[in-house]
């Protein structure tokens, strides 16, 4: 009897399965053509939209066919440029791979004949983060200065890549004489100087990392670098100036044209800046001396030195006389993954070769889940004996962990450099 009931069970189930399978097959027969039609319509709609957008625009430049172009294009991000005489706009297709994922972000930008943005659309965004609706909207109506376009907090890599691409678009049109560049105001000019004159306060895409502070007197506002390497201050007056004040390098001032005007400035102003910076500075020296002291052979005493003109991520420079000879020790704090500050320590011998290398946390916990490859011990050993000449960037590379690699690269280059002063 048991055998019969097992058979019956199986039979019943098989029948039900067959019934269901047929049902699904039937529904599939019904829906498959509908789905195919949906897809066909979607593809057609996309093609129509493309035609409507371009209309009978004149193709001015196409990266795929440079010979047919009438424009000279130097920027890599510009893919194609059209001129629409009816709507009186230039339409540009841009593609940038400088975003977070390093995959291409596709943009469509339209600028009118006077040089103002009509629309900026993100067509493809492989970076996982949401840019929000305000960011693309903020481009509308902007001229070539892009002065009102602010980067999106938490998505700085993606938004700065997009901003740079739009900037490239503008420059392309301006360089080809299609319209004139708009003038930037002083505040914007000074802000744009920062990555060039003080690399230690910006991350790789050039975004300032730090908190905003208010100044006093003629010093209106400033930024305190998140890694403790120094400050930038904005001085307003007859001439608006940018002051860079670093822990090791002293004070330097620049005007809106980017010229170093430190020598021609009133000494009182320099003192004011120095005082303001000291009042707001954190003291990293005890921590750095402790860490570097451990790396010296016989725990010799470290004496701080000033390195004039140093405005990088290096936050501490010291000299020590050990039994092995003179040692130069540096602490650098570049920005790594997610813009978090990393601690690197280098001890260099008299010839400028790295005698000891230490880093607080090479792969920050947050980058742990990307697929990086790192043999901790041999990586660190690879730094020993390197000099400014023999270091070529490869020694700092961690495959799969670009931001940490970049940070290590920055720190190494900047610590090998001071001895060449």
């Amino acid at each position, binding site marked *: 009897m048991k055998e019969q009931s097992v058979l019956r069970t199986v039979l019943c189930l098989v029948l*039900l399965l067959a019934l269901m399978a047929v*049902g699904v097959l039937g529904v599939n027969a019904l829906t498959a053509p509908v789905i195919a039609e949906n897809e066909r319509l979607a593809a057609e709609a996309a093609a129509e939209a493309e035609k409507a957008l371009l209309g009978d625009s004149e193709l001015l430049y196409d990266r795929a066919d440079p010979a047919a172009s009438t424009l000279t294009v130097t920027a890599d991000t510009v893919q194609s440029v059209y001129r629409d005489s009816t709507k009186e706009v230039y339409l540009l297709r841009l593609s940038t791979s400088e975003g977070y994922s390093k995959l291409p972000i596709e943009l469509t930008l339209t600028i009118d004949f006077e040089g103002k943005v009509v629309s900026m659309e993100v067509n493809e965004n492989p970076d996982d983060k949401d840019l929000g609706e305000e960011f693309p909207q903020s481009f509308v109506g902007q001229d070539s200065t892009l002065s009102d376009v602010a980067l999106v907090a938490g998505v700085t890599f993606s938004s700065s890549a997009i901003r740079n691409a739009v900037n490239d678009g503008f420059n392309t049109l301006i360089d080809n004489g299609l319209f004139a560049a708009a003038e930037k105001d002083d505040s914007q000019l000074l802000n744009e100087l920062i990555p060039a004159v003080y690399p230690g306060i910006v991350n790789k895409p050039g975004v300032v990392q730090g908190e905003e502070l208010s100044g006093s007197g003629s010093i209106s506002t400033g930024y305190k670098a998140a890694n403790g390497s120094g400050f930038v201050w904005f001085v307003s007056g007859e001439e608006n100036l940018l002051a860079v004040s670093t822990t090791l390098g002293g004070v330097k001032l620049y005007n809106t044209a980017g010229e170093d005007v430190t020598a021609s400035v009133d000494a009182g102003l320099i003192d004011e800046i120095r005082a303001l910076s000291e009042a707001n500075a954190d003291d990293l020296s005890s921590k750095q001396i402790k860490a570097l002291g451990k790396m010296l052979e016989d725990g010799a005493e470290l004496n701080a030195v000033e390195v004039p003109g140093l405005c990088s991520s290096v936050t501490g420079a010291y000299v020590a006389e050990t039994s092995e000879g003179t040692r130069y020790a540096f602490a650098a704090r570049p920005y790594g993954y997610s813009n978090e500050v990393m601690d690197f320590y280098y001890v260099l011998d008299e010839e400028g070769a790295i005698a000891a290398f230490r880093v607080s946390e090479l792969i920050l916990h947050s980058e742990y889940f990307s697929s990086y490859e790192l043999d901790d011990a041999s990586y660190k050993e690879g730094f020993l004996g390197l000099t400014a000449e023999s270091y070529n960037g490869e020694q700092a590379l961690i495959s799969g962990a670009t931001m940490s690699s970049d940070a290590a690269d920055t720190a190494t280059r900047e610590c090998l450099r001071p001895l060449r002063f």
Partner: protein
Amino acid sequence: MKEKLLYLNPVTLLFLGAAPALAASADVRAALGMSAAVLCVLLCSALVLGLARKWIPAEAKLPAALLVVAGFASMAQLLLQAFLPGAFAMLGFYAAVLGVDLMIFGSAENAMEQDLGKGLLSALLSGLCFAIFVLVLAALRELFGAASFAGNAVEALKDYKIPLLTQASGGLIVFSILLAVVNRLFPAQGSVGALARAAAGLEPEDKEA
């Protein structure tokens, strides 16, 4: 039977069907699509199993229910893809998962124990209960999580939106609060374990297996 009553309580119903409910509650359009799919699968399974129950031997009951529900879930997924592509884009995958949904399974089990009419009615009620709950949940999550309703932005709430609500943990939080409210109105007795047993159509036991 006490266990059956236990099963038909709205709180327990939704607890069992938590997965599709949560997945569809990020957006009101998705909620509508999912509710429609769930209702169809519930009714169709109840119908087929209610009609066939006399011919299904006892040992085959559980697998039979599973096969039938899975079959209708497949059909629902295909229909969604064809006729509600918007909803499909948001939750197409979860329509497939309806195939093993405990709530639907429980209703299917139920349909095999009772007459056709009662089975269908209970399926209908479960479906409606699910739909109402999920729509409310979706409305809350979308309004306060993304400041929009069915995809249309709601300007007034824009500055107050809490993005956490659109994520998994936020959804669970709102779900639990909503469930607590429903619990107050229709208190569900019994333990979580007993419920699971009832839903699976198993005999109640005094001790854990």
